[in-house]
């Protein structure tokens, strides 16, 4: 399926492409993510997400969700049922809240996208109670939401590119932090000097969203994003 878009909105095809690209990068980085988790957690983060996104691919092959919201909700339910661990409920909540935020809109403009990203982040905070600087996926999501909100809203691709870039920087910035939530917190100061696996996977997944939007946008229609 080829992603399509008007340039000023993204649609169900984009959402599906996002999920497929997410599955691909998670599979590609499965070992690397687990390796990050092995350093400060229990070494299963890549495996967990890969199990979830593989199941999402299977669902997508069965039936294409008709709207972005339906795609997000399908992803949410699949991640909640298949991933387990901390990441399953947290990513699941993120997609669930995003789905609720966009309702059954067929096309999402930049404003709705920013709202969806914000709702996703807020959902993770509500479930996990982490604050910025606690060395969790929140440290990728909050800069991403902030960057998206501040980005040029003429094109979703630009909004998502800004979000992805900020998420990547946020993930890198978790390196020196002492973890205060999740398994890594048990290590105390020994968690310093390692990247948070959930922040790293969040950056990968948000980059997949931006890439899908860039692929969907008609040539020349994208904004400032990469």
């Amino acid at each position, binding site marked *: 399926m080829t992603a399509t878009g008007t340039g000023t909105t993204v649609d169900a095809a984009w959402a599906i492409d996002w999920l497929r690209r997410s599955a691909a990068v998670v599979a590609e980085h499965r070992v690397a993510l687990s390796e990050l988790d092995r350093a400060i957690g229990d070494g*299963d983060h890549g495996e967990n997400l890969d199990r979830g996104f593989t199941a999402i691919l299977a669902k997508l092959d069965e039936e294409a969700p008709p709207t972005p919201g339906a795609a997000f909700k399908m992803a949410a339910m699949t991640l909640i049922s298949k991933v387990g661990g901390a990441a399953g409920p947290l990513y699941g909540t993120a997609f669930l809240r995003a789905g609720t935020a966009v309702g059954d809109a067929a096309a999402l403009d930049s404003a709705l996208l920013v709202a969806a990203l914000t709702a996703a982040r807020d959902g993770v905070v509500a479930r996990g109670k982490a604050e910025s600087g606690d060395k969790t996926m929140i440290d990728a999501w909050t800069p991403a939401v902030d960057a998206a909100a501040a980005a040029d809203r003429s094109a979703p691709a630009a909004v998502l590119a800004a979000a992805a870039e900020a998420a990547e920087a946020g993930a890198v910035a978790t390196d020196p932090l002492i973890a205060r939530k999740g*398994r890594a917190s*048990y290590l105390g100061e020994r968690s310093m000097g390692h990247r948070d696996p959930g922040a790293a996977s969040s950056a990968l997944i948000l980059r997949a969203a931006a890439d899908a939007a860039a692929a969907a946008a008609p040539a020349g229609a994208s904004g400032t994003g990469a």
Partner: protein
Amino acid sequence: MKKLINDPKAVVEESVEGFGLAHADLVTVHPDPLFVSRKDAKSGKVGLLSGGGSGHEPLHAGYVGFGMLDAAVPGAVFTSPTPEAIIPATAAANSGAGVVHIVKNYTGDVLNFETAAEMAQADGIEVRTVLVNDDVAVEDSLYTAGRRGVGGTVLVEKIAGAAAERGDGLDAVAAIGRRVNDNVRTMGVALSACTVPHAGVPSFELADDEIEIGIGIHGEPGRHRIAMENADGITDRLLEPILADLKPASGDKVLLFVNGMGGTPSSELYIVYRHAVKVLEAANLVVERSLVGNYITSLEMQGCSISVLRLDDEMTALWDAPVHTPALRWGM
């Protein structure tokens, strides 16, 4: 990595299948979603359910049976199970009087059981949750995800299970489970790391003369890495924070639980037990009950944990009550 396994991805399924075949008199294995339920549960009693990542065997499935759990939900290795499995297991454990979820305090377990409990309640099943967080290795619980649930889990499951079996109501069973948790403290040590099957490499590296003090049960590194010491010295190091935190009074009766992490021979556990008894007696505590063996493990990790539970007469009586599960059995 050398393990007696076939496909690393099928380890849990195949192992639980074998477990079900070996203990068909006691348990039923439901393969998809995977959970284990008790065969002979009497109707009308409060149901007890626990679960969590696999790799801690015999926890939890080994404790399904008379006087202990009604259902257990094994997740992937070291990964909490999902609501998809917890919800039908809760339904299986329910015979009308509601279900107590015994949940070890890890973000993943808490979140997944929380979701499942909500959905089960929406289906009309009363659920109470007992959170186990007995690990004194986690010092600044304000600045962490809180203390982990470790060795004390076995004691909570046994004692709350006996309360359910004698006919206590839902809130009473949850209350005794919480009372056990409030009175137990645990600390662990690793001499070697374990290898998660799908990872294929040890979960941390430890030099030949190093040990990890204050480990959890997921192959994660501990709080401190120190030079190897002898068994008595290690025992002192484990008991010290336990007693400092539990603050038992002189003359208190306790249950002493020396638990193997999976790869340590029982002969070594008894060497630890021997010294632990001396330390507790020197602190004027009365070791009334004991448990020594592999009861909550981390795959093939070498090491042990010590748990001390301050007993009251009711807990002792419930501990002594008959139990008949694949991994714990007495009185019948």
